[in-house]
């Protein structure tokens, strides 16, 4: 039990938090896959609209990506900035 110092608990908390933060990657994966499927249907129904449908789809996907990026940035902050920040406050 001597290894369970405060520093070890802080590092462990940061690592587990970073892993949990990246569960947010599920959302954009499902949502954008569904959007691409709908875009493919639209192209199949009307092949001459391909470029317009494609650019609208890419614009929509980049906006739907936002919450995934929130989780990614949180994970990065937890791994690289949080340990120093929390250890200084000990």
């Amino acid at each position, binding site marked *: 039990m001597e290894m369970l110092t405060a520093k070890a608990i802080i590092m462990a908390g940061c690592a587990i938090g970073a892993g949990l933060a990246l569960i947010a990657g599920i959302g954009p994966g499902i949502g954008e896959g569904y959007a691409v499927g709908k875009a493919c249907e639209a192209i199949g129904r009307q092949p001459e609209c391909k470029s317009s449908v494609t650019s609208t789809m*890419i*614009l929509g996907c*980049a*906006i739907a*990506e*936002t919450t995934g*990026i*929130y989780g*990614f*940035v949180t994970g*990065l902050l937890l791994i*690289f*900035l949080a340990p120093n920040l929390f250890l200084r406050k000990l």
Partner: protein
Amino acid sequence: MDNIEIAGAKILFYIFGVPVTETQVNSLIVLALLFGLCLFLTHDLKVRPTSKRQLAAEWIVEKVTGLVRDNMGERFLGFAPFVAAILGLSACSSLLALVAMYPPTADLNTVLGWALLVFVMITYYKIRSSGPLGYLKGFTEPIVVFTPFNILGEIATPVSMAFRHFGNVVSGTVISALVYAALASLSTVLLGWLPGVLGRIPFLQIGLPAVLSIYFDLFSSCMQAFIFAMLTMLYIANAADTEEN
């Protein structure tokens, strides 16, 4: 892998006690580049274009006014220079990562400043179209208990615009730094037996970072600049259209 440092912008020097960071110096470089580009493109204009330079300038103006006309309607054509400025600044600032300089958009202050500017304009148009009392009453629709959610949604607009841009650029720079560090340590393991100084040059760093950089630096920068401009246009057009209801 223990000599990489992932931190914010470095402070370069101090002027009268005020710190000047890499962000400000690189932003000034981007401004000088864009100003030089504008001077170069509008140098010797004729009524009938005879140089490719003038055709390029006309193409840029046509594309931007076409975007503004499609998304905001005819009466907002005066916004075209503002939208072109945001597009140019955002794309040029993020593309500085291609030449191994610190991109100013990797600092949250830059992007948050632009987003706050857009937020001030949205609020101005909302107050102008429905009056100050109408603006405050708009927060209590449809039911009074929705007020905190409406206020939160209002604040979320500039915050999400800023964080989307910042998150994409920063994740690109962090992943590039990590890939470089991993390739350097892999190179010392695999090629460390070469004699003399050849054993210390990380040969494996040639090639793979360039392929990743095509997505993270080229594609992602242009995409995020375009999305920031599109969201600006759509939010302002939406805010000014509440008077027609």
